[in-house]
Every structure is written in C-alpha cells, then in structure tokens.
C-alpha cells in the first residue's frame, strides 16, 4: 500500500477517534459545548482528509473537480465548528467577526454548488502528475472561479478573529490557552490560506495537503480540553476530600447536613442528619416525610417558614421538636439556604440541623428554678415580714402581760374590781398574741425542708443563676471554694436565696465602679462551722454599726424595700447560723454567714 494512503487514512482515523471521544463527553455533559464543537470540527476534518485523499488520487479532471466540490461541505463544517470552538472555549473573539466568517463561508458553499464545477475552478481543465512522498499525485489546472473571493475573505477574517481572540486570552492571563488553542488554530488556518494562495495563484505546483496538518491542530485542541477533564477529576477528588472533612466536622459539631432538591422534592440527608431525624440510610425522603417527624405543635410553623423562605428567597432558620418513631423527643435548631441557577426559581436548599435538646433542657430547668425562687422569695418575704411584726409586737405585748400579772400579784386578794381589770388586760394581750401566732402559722405553711447540703454545690448553682446579670453588669466573679467542707443541714432554696440576695446587693454596690469584682469563698470557720464570704469591690458600708444593715426597712436603694438583708438574717438564724457584715480593708464590703456542720442523723 502507498505511504500517502496510509498517512491520510491514519490521520482521518485519528481525527474521528478524537472527535468521538469528545462526542461521548458531550453526551454526559450537555452544557459543555466545546466538546460538541470539537467533535464537529474533527468530523469535518475527517471528511476533509478523505476528500483530499481522493483528490490526490484523481485520474481525470472531472473526478478531481467533483471531489473538490464535495470537499467544501466538510470544510464548511470544520470552519464553522472552529469558529464556535474558539468563541466558546477561549471565551474570546468578536462576535460580529464570527458571524461574518460564518456567513462568508456559507456563501462560498452556496457558490460552490451554484457556479462552475466548484468554488475554486469554473472548470478543471487538466491534471498534472507531481511527485510527492515518493509517489506521483494529481494536481489540478483550470479556470479559477471568481466567487472564491468569499472563501478567501472568510479565511483572512478567520485569521484576524483568531489573532484577536488569542490576544484577549493572553491579556487575560490565560497564556496556556492562548498558546495551545489560539496559536495552533492560527497555524492551521494560515496554512490553509497560504496553500489556497499557492494553488490559486499557481505560484508553485503543489498538491492540496491541508489534512495532515489538521491532526496537529486537533491534538493541540484536545490537549486544552483534556486539561479541563484533568482539572475536573482533580476537583472531584478535592470534593470527595472536602466532603470527608465536612463529615468529620459535622460529627464533631454534631451538625447534620441536608440537601433538598426542590423540583424533585427529594431530601438527601447526611449520616448525622439521618440519625437526628431517625431515618434509615437510603430511605426516600420528601419534605412531607420530614414534616411528619416534626412535633405536631411545631409542624405548621416550620412548614409556613419554609414556604416563606421559598417565596422571599431568604435563608431559613428555626427551632423545633422532632419526635422519633420510638417516641423520643429532641430539639433541633435548623438553618437552610436557597440555591438557584441564573434568574430561575430556587432549585435547592442546603442546610444544617443541630441537636439542642440539652440546651433546651438546661434553659427549662433554669427558668423553672427561677420561678421557684421568685415564688419562695415572695413567701419568705411574707414570712420575714410577719416575723419582724411578731418580734416587734411581742415585746410590748409581753411587757403588758408581765405588768398586768405583776400588778395582780402585788394587789393580792383585795380589790376584786381592779384584779378583774388586770385579768382582762392580760386576757386581751393573750388574744392579740394568738392572732399573731395564727398569721405566722398561715405563712409558715410552706415548710422548711432541711436536708444535708454541700455548700460549694449550692454556691456553684447560684453562680449559674447569676451568670446573666454578672455579664450584663460586666462584672468578674471569682470563687474560692475550699474542698472537703463539712455538710450543713439546711433548706436548699432558702439558702440559695440568701446567696442570691447577697450577690445581687454586691452587684448593686459595684454599679458605676471602675472595677467590679465579686468574690465568693467558702471555708471551715471552726471544725464544726462552715463560713461563706461574699466580697464586693463596691462602695462599702457607710453605717458605723454594720449590724444596722440587717434591720428591717434599712435600705440604701431607691427602689429597695429594705427587707433583703433582714430576710437573709431571718433565714440564717432559722438555720441556727449567724450573719454579719464588715468593710474590707481594701474597700468594698464583706458579707459573711456561718452555719453549723451537720452532725448526721435526724434531729
């Protein structure tokens, strides 16, 4: 077989193979037009090369002329596809130039069929045999067709178009792109133009050999495209890695990721999310299936919020309860963001879900504890009020009763009338006392619940309750709690109220001070007494008699009732303890109380 036949056929086969590969790529990714255009260019080139082979092998001028005529169909396909390829792949080149080239080329194709034998020759008059690659091949001689000017013009414009596109790409910094696609296309087109000139102007006797150069162009173009494929593969690898990282992060943060395909109404949940909502992997999940998992009381709100988010295109955020098939309830905090393509309605919503059950429970416990404290504060205030009242009235009442009794004793058996008066006085004093006792009995309904307590645990709980007001006052809190303190016997909530009262007073005393430091310390005062100190960096106590601050109705606050410390004292004394106040040598006040250690066993 001849060398020419082998080379031309191999080149044609190579072009077709490369083109087919890109056709397959395009079938998978319909939007990558570059691949389709590459296929078209390659397919055109295959036809072009085959026509060329037949022309080289033509025996008569008629045969040559007819083949040259057919030659222009694949040439047209190739040029148009290349124009498109440059435009799409390099994202450069002027659009008007592209259109002009296409129109001129199409006109050239029209004249190819409408005038003369083909657009190159009105008529091929004779063939000449020329030696080429050790064989003799046919070269045509004939009358040139004037309409060939369209084809030539289209090629020159094509050269300009490519140069322009290459320069643009180069300037944009895409140098590799400019070199591979731009320069190789330019070389190919220039060769076509030069050959056209040579043949047309009959400068030299040269066979038409555009085809083989085409394989170089296709190779260069294919290289550019392959780089895209390689980088896509790299991206896929990166994506996989980032997904793995995300899975790790999601596990660490206990975040569940979800991805809702809105059009198909399919929710894809990642492992952690599936676990949170109690779905099995691979289960088909739609929005309504997810909504079914949401607590009936929260379901409607969630649905409305999702709809609202879809309507306004803004992010979704919400908290709701999820009820798992086994009946367990958990709190979820979810967020979602919409993704849309171009200006179209959103197609996806991506988001996260987090288990916040623990937070919610803590919150609920806190607010429950606060309510309980408020309730008890009211009762202890009443209790303390009636306590002061009882104490204040008991003294004069006791004096009246004592005096009446003493007078009766001194009076002896004489003066029945005076004696009767004295016993009436005593009787009324007793009646007043009974009224007081009844009131106190009523208030005392809320029983004191004494239990063995760890004072340090109590302090820590109280500080937990105080946290919000500490941070809002921008104060610092230090705890110096000695370990292994003796257990005390006391009422948890009442003692907590004392601690809260002392700490809140401290906070008030420090308002407006540059340094706001609250210290709570605990220690053993004696082997059988536990002491707690609440120290502030405030203004200290003005009273000379620091005991006066514990008197009822003593207050330095405008809105204060003056009962806080009196109540503290009444609670501590009820526990058989002692409470006192001092000024700290470095400024500020120290409020301390001490309680007996619990000796064990019920008393």
């Amino acid at each position: 077989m001849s060398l020419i036949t082998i080379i031309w056929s191999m080149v044609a086969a190579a072009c077709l193979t490369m083109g087919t590969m890109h056709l397959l790529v395009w079938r998978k990714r319909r939007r990558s037009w570059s691949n389709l255009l590459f296929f078209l260019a390659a397919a055109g080139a295959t036809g072009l090369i085959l026509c060329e082979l037949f022309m080289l092998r033509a025996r008569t001028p008629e045969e040559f002329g007819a083949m040259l005529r057919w030659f222009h169909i694949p040439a047209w396909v190739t040029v148009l596809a290349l124009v498109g390829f440059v435009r799409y792949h390099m994202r450069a080149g002027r659009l008007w130039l592209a259109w002009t080239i296409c129109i001129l080329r199409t006109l050239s194709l029209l004249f190819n069929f409408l005038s003369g034998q083909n657009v190159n020759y009105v008529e091929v008059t004779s063939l000449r045999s020329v030696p080429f690659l050790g064989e003799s091949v046919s070269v045509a001689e004939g009358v040139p067709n004037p309409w060939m000017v369209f084809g030539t013009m289209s090629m020159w414009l094509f050269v300009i178009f490519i140069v322009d596109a290459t320069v643009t790409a180069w300037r944009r910094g895409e140098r590799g792109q400019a070199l591979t696609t731009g320069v190789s296309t330019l070389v190919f087109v220039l060769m076509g133009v030069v050959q056209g000139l040579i043949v047309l102007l009959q400068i030299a006797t040269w066979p038409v050999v555009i085809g083989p150069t085409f394989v170089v162009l296709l190779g260069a173009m294919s290289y550019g495209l392959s780089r895209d494929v390689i980088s896509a593969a790299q991206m896929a690898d990166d994506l996989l890695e980032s997904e793995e990282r995300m899975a790790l992060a999601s596990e660490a943060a206990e975040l569940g990721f979800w991805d809702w395909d809105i059009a198909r109404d399919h929710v894809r949940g990642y492992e952690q999310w599936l676990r949170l909502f109690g779905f099995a992997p691979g289960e088909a999940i739609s929005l309504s299936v997810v909504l079914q998992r949401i607590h009936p009381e929260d379901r409607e709100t969630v649905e409305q919020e999702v709809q609202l988010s879809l309507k306004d295109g803004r992010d979704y955020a919400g908290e709701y309860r999820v009820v798992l098939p086994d009946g367990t309830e958990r709190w979820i905090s979810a967020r979602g963001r919409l993704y849309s393509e171009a200006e179209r309605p959103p197609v996806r919503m991506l988001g996260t879900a987090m288990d916040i059950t623990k937070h919610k429970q803590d919150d609920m416990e806190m607010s429950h504890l606060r309510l309980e404290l408020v309730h008890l504060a009211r009762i202890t205030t009443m209790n303390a009020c009636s306590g002061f009242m009882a104490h204040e009235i008991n003294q004069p009442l006791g004096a009246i009763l004592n005096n009446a009794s003493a007078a009766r004793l001194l009076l002896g058996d004489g003066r029945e009338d005076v004696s009767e008066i004295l016993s009436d006085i005593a009787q009324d004093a007793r009646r007043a006392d009974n009224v007081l006792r009844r009131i106190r009995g009523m208030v005392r309904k809320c029983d004191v619940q004494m239990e063995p307590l760890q004072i340090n645990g109590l302090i820590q709980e109280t500080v937990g309750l105080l946290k919000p007001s500490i941070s809002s006052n921008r104060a610092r809190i230090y705890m110096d709690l000695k370990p292994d303190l003796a257990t005390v016997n006391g009422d948890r909530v009442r003692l907590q109220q004392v601690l809260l009262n002392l700490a809140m007073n401290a906070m008030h005393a420090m308002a407006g001070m540059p340094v706001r430091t609250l210290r709570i310390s605990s220690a053993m005062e004696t082997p059988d007494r536990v002491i707690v100190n609440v120290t502030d960096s405030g203004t200290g106590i003005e009273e000379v008699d620091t005991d006066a601050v514990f008197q009822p109705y003593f207050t330095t606050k405008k809105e204060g009732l003056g009962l806080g410390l009196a109540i503290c004292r009444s609670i501590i004394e009820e526990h058989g303890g002692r409470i006192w106040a001092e000024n700290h040598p470095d400024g500020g006040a120290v409020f301390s109380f001490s309680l007996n250690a619990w000796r064990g066993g019920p008393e």
Partner: protein
Amino acid sequence: MSPRRGVVYIVEDDPSFRKSVERLVRASGFDVVALESASSFLAKRSIRRPACLLLDVRLPDIDGLALQQKLIDEDRNLPIIFMTGHGSIPMSVEAMKKGAVDFLPKPFEAKELRSAILKALERDAKNAKAELQSKRAGSLIDTLTPREKEVLRWVITGKLNKQIADVLGITEKTVKVHRGRVMQKTGVSSVAELVRLADKANILPAS
C-alpha cells in the same frame, strides 16, 4: 410576800420589757438583778447562790446562745431560762442540749415563768450544795499525808488490809495505823462513809 431564797439575774435589752419582767419576778417573790447586756452580766464576778439567769436570745453585743457557751467554757454553771421574740426550733433545741432549763416564747404567762424559775433555782441550789460538800470533803482530804491518801485510795477499792500491805510493800500493821488515822482525821465511822466522802472530793480508787 417575803423574798424566796434565790436571785434571778435578768439580761434583756428592751427597757420596757426588762422593767416588766423585773416587776413580775419580784412580785413572784424572788430577788432580782436586771441587766441590759450580756457583757454587763459577765462583768459581775460574784453571784449570790442559788441563782438563775433569765436571758433574752437576741442581744446587741453577745447573743444569748453565745453567752451560754461562754459560761460553759468558763465553768460557771448557772441554770439558764431563755426568752425569745420568735424562737425557732433549731435554736431552742441547741439551747436545751447545752443544758438550758427552759425556752419561753414571748409573751409568756406568770405561772410558766414562776415554775421555770423555781426549777432553775432548785437545780442551782442542788449544784451549790454539791459544790459545797465537795469543797468540804476536799479540805478534809487535804489534811491527810501523802501516804495516808494512798492508803485511802486502796481502802475505797474494798481491799483487805493484808492485800493493801502486799501491794504497798509495808506491814499489815502499818496499814492499820494509817487507816485509823484517816478515819480519825475525816471524822467518818465506816468504809461506806469514806467511799462517799472520797467521791465528793473527786478522789478515785487506786488501780
């Protein structure tokens, strides 16, 4: 009404209540010393016996319970009756455990007060008597020589003269002489009386 034997010391800061209770106690037939604070009571060095303390729980300087503790610490054994405006149960339990005679919530009845005072004075009289006897017994024992004291400690264990002589390494006769002198000096006529006397004087049997 003639004053009964015994002094009631009242410590109460509220003047009108103090005056009223002073009157009542006096009218009930007791001698009274009324004071306004714990420290003025502590300043009193001599107390006429029998006596008792009528003490308010809440006092400005040293509160009632602390005063009670102080007296216990100083070994001044005086029966205490507490008075309180609004006493709490733990507080009264604490006071009673430490030997208070009674805990009276204000206002109280004359009868309650009187019986509490009588109980307290009776207790103190008993204490005073025991103290006196112990003091007397002690001074009698003090007249003995060290050897006689040693023999006494063996005698009250109930041992025979022979046994005592063996232990002390002396003759039975010498033991007999010491024993006779002990009986003579202390003025007792039997071993049983000797045992009682030694007990009052806090003399422990030898071992």
